[in-house]
């Protein structure tokens, strides 16, 4: 059977990997290319590169890094950040990305998902959503979590999947950076609504959090995290072993 995937996420700014807590206070970690090679050798099933640069120079540097990474890392690469048009899809796919993740770009222009799915295939288009509870409802946030769109998360994700998004990354802003586990209620709600792979993001603090994620939500396909991997708090190789010992199918 298909294995559950473990995905390290690399937020890249000005050529360096950074990861903040609750999206603030960014701290430099390492060279993205070296880190990607390291993760690939430890058994990461996929990598997400997230471009959090705002400048044109930063964007060009990001594309160079992506190209260099794809020359030595032979696992699927998903790229997100600043994807607003089909030209942006073309730019990152041409540098070795396999999937492209859209977030604010889809909120600003919902047709982007459908256009990209038609051109590159559903499997290539990932809808990523930053979600936070507001008055007891799940709201979609835009612009790196700074702006409440007022949109309800589950209908928004469902709409993007209907348009052709082949995969969903659910990032809970409520659990992100807190390291107390994934947002199980939110993830359950999304899994119930869509039939495409769902990737859980935000909240991983220990190996047990991943075990709980996959045991409590059998439909979840992957767990994504950043800082716990970057700082060596969780070793991917050990995590995979732990998953197997708990009866979860993992690639070792």
């Amino acid at each position, binding site marked *: *059977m*298909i*294995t559950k*995937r473990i995905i390290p996420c690399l937020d890249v700014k000005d050529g360096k990997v950074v990861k903040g807590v609750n999206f603030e206070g960014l701290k430099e970690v390492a060279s993205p290319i070296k880190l990607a090679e390291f993760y*690939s050798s430890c058994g990461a*099933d996929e990598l997400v590169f997230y471009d959090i640069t705002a400048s044109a120079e930063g964007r060009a540097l990001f594309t160079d890094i992506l*190209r260099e990474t*794809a*020359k*030595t890392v*032979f*696992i*699927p690469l998903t790229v997100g950040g600043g994807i607003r048009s089909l030209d942006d899809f073309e730019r990152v*796919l*041409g*540098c*070795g990305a*396999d999937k492209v993740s859209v977030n604010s770009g889809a909120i600003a222009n919902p047709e982007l998902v459908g256009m990209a799915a038609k051109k*590159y*295939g*559903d*499997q290539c288009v990932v809808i990523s959503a930053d979600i936070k509870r507001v008055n007891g409802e799940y709201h979609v946030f835009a612009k790196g979590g700074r702006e409440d769109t007022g949109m309800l998360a589950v209908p928004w994700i469902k709409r993007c999947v209907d348009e052709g998004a*082949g*995969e969903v990354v659910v990032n809970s802003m409520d659990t992100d950076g807190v390291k107390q586990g994934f947002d199980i209620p939110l993830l359950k709600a999304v899994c119930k609504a869509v*039939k*495409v*792979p769902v990737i859980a993001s935000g909240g991983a603090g220990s190996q047990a959090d991943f075990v709980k994620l996959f045991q409590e939500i059998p439909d979840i*396909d992957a767990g994504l995290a950043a800082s716990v991997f970057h700082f060596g708090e969780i070793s991917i190789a050990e995590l995979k072993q732990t998953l197997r010992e708990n009866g979860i199918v993992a*690639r070792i």
Partner: protein
Amino acid sequence: MIAIVDYGVGNLFSLHSSLKAVGAETVVTSDKAVIENAEKIILPGVGAFADAAEKLKNSGLDEVVKAEVKKGKPLMGICLGMQMLFERSFEYGEHQGLGLLKGDVVPMKGYIDESLKIPHIGWNALHFVKENPLFRYCKEGDFVYFVHSYFADRCEDSVVATADYGKPLTAAVAKGNVYGCQFHPEKSGEVGLKILKAFCEI
């Protein structure tokens, strides 16, 4: 020299890089003469069958590939490129493939259990049904990366490996000098590189 056939479908960057990583001299080309002079051919492909088959046909490279295979040159199809080796595909209608292998490409929908997600996307284990030099460096249960919604069926005479997705799905085929992988060796980490290396050495 290995020729990766470029007929305007998909992104060949990773495939090219992975072959370089195993030390193969590789060229991405749509030039008939280059393909004719290459020692081996790789037929890649992503997207929809009909669109890809039409592009390959319009490029005229379908006949070049078939002629080279007839001369005994090793050919490997990858993903949609593997599906195109067969006689027919039933992806949105009925379409002709290259007919180098016996069998049809059919939808997973209706074949696999309804509770399973389509596309079949992610890492799955290889189960070998026949020995083949393509997998000389691999072992039973090695994981490779799949992304597909259709699969090769009625291909008993060429199937060499399957993957379990509730039911067995054709993962790799080989017959004479024609090889095919439904999965993406260029995205399957060390195992994928071993398969590419083995193809280079055939």
